[in-house]
């Protein structure tokens, strides 16, 4: 069996669409409103699969949210027939294929796989994740004017994909990265590619340089600058316009915080469901604890926390250079135009020496 193939776009679309006979295929699709969403594909609908190879900007929400959908039911409870109290976890192991995942989102999934398996594993995420095959698509050009995936080290990320696709020499390179990927490729019509690394080199050479927005320093330097800026006015400056709407958290592929809620059956108040909703550190009440005390009420402190999670805290906890993958979604969807790229650039530039230390309460 071939580890890598060259195929035409049309055969790739047939291949993706035909996967629908064995597993649900989730693929990016541009809606009438112009937004791209990852949606289930009807089996065999190759026209709808075109988004897998298209490069029309980042999706509204990152595809990795598939593994923790909003409002999911974690477990149900109620009395069992024998009178005992029954709690039943809901684990979704339906086989899926997630197709057309771009490198930034792939890297985010790879990071979330680590976070969700670590310490206190999340069985709901892991059940969906383990049942899902991923076909990635390498980007040939920046998806939007907000992207800075290369600066965040995401552009050449492949880990987590079972098969990576890339446009090379007018054809599509399909490169298996896992044993599952090798078996998926058995159904793809194409010619064997003997030297995939050489093909990747040609793909990379054809890309614009620099790719997307560049930062004036490495990710390691950014992590150090973030830590050093604890009392810097940068947080206040990038928060004055903030509406605390939480959009930057909820559209981020590496934000995974949640809150839980109980839904009680009105007709049978002893029965119900525990559901989980997306939450985020920019939202009011995120850090409120019993008794109503909120230990991070100040908006600038919330912004500082969010940015530290991306550039300092999570990298330190999980051993990676950054947890921002540079997708550009948070800046693009913030109605106040607050962009983490601008914050990162300011952090790397350092604050002017005469800047007064800002009072940011914890």
């Amino acid at each position, binding site marked *: 069996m071939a580890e890598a193939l060259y195929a035409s776009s049309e055969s790739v679309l047939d291949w993706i669409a035909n996967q629908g006979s064995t597993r649900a295929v989730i693929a990016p699709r541009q*809606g009438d*409103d*112009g*937004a791209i*969403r990852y949606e289930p594909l009807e089996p065999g609908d190759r026209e709808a699969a075109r988004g897998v190879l298209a490069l029309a900007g980042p999706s*509204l*929400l990152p595809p990795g949210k598939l593994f923790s959908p*909003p*409002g999911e039911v974690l477990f149900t409870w109620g009395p069992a027939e024998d009178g005992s109290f029954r709690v039943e976890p809901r684990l979704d192991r339906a086989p899926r294929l997630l197709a057309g995942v771009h490198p930034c989102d792939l890297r985010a999934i790879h990071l979330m796989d680590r976070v969700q398996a670590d310490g206190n594993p999340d069985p709901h995420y892991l059940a969906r994740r383990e049942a899902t095959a991923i076909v990635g698509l390498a980007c040939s050009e920046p998806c939007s004017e907000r992207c800075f995936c290369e600066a965040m080290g995401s552009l050449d990320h492949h880990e987590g994909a079972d098969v990576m696709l890339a446009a090379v020499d007018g054809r599509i390179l399909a490169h298996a990265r896992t044993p599952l990927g090798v078996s998926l490729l058995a159904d793809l019509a194409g010619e064997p590619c003997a030297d995939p690394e050489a093909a990747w080199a040609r793909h990379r050479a054809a890309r614009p340089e620099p790719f997307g927005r560049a930062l004036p320093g490495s990710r390691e330097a950014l992590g150090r600058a973030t830590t050093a800026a604890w009392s810097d006015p940068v947080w206040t400056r990038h928060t*004055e*316009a*903030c*509406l*605390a*709407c*939480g*959009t930057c958290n*909820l*559209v981020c592929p590496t934000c995974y915080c949640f*809150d839980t*809620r*109980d*839904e*009680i*059956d*009105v*007709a049978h*108040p*002893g029965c*119900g469901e525990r559901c989980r*909703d*997306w939450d985020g550190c920019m*939202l*009011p*009440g995120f850090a409120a604890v019993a008794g109503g005390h909120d230990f991070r009420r100040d*908006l600038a402190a919330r912004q500082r926390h969010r940015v530290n999670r991306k550039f300092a805290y999570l990298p330190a906890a999980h051993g990676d250079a950054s947890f921002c993958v540079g997708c550009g979604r948070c800046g693009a*969807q913030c*109605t*106040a135009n607050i962009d983490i790229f601008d914050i990162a650039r300011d952090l790397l530039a350092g604050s002017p020496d005469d800047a007064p230390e800002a009072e940011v309460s914890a």
Partner: protein
Amino acid sequence: MRPRIAFFDFASCEGCQLAILNCEDRLLDLLQLVDIVEFREALSEKGARYDVAFVEGSIHREIDAERLRDIRARSRLLVALGACASTGNVQAAANALSPAENFARVYGEAARNRVQADRRHWPLWAHTRVRPIEEVVEVDHHLRGCPVVPEEFLRFLGHVLAGTRPMERPHAVCTECKAAGVRCVFERGETCMGQVTWAGCRAICTRQGYRCDGCRGLLPDANLAAHRRVLREHGLDDEAIDARYDLFCAAGRQAIEEGPL
């Protein structure tokens, strides 16, 4: 014992009570589990003490405030039902005008003068200021929106029956746009109140392709100065912005911009 629940209305269109009567299928289940002791639009039986009092409408006169205090004293839980009770709703825009001027705007100068001179109509002028019920009594829970979301009403009662209380998370409607995968209206050049408005409606308006007009009320920590800047950048002038705030959030805006009385 089955919880005794009651419904009361002040200045409102009674649309919230209707919205609840409209969840007929679930209401029948509910009637087995609670005693509805007062419901102006459904029953006339009177009861003295309530486990849950649902209060619809805003408070305009001192006699209304007194009646509300009496309801509070007789109720274990008191719930604001809908936008009028929770925020003062559209009628709170009248607070920016004197009652006489407001009357003239609606009915004309001649009618106003006639009513002002006729002592039989003097009780009309007992109207002081439009207040959300929380300005008068302590409120245990808010069911927001114009009208209320029937599922939220049912969820609340489910919790009461189970001896708990649903959380009120002070989140913006934007969170529900994200959960529903709605493309933000600002991206198509329109403007929205959703960033400063209580969520809980599951972003029903933006999901239908419209914008959020803020019927669930302003969030307590809403950054109105920043929101105004965003609206200006998207082409609204201050008059248009004030009109947008005052549609559903006049009382809330007065409280945030001018501080408590």
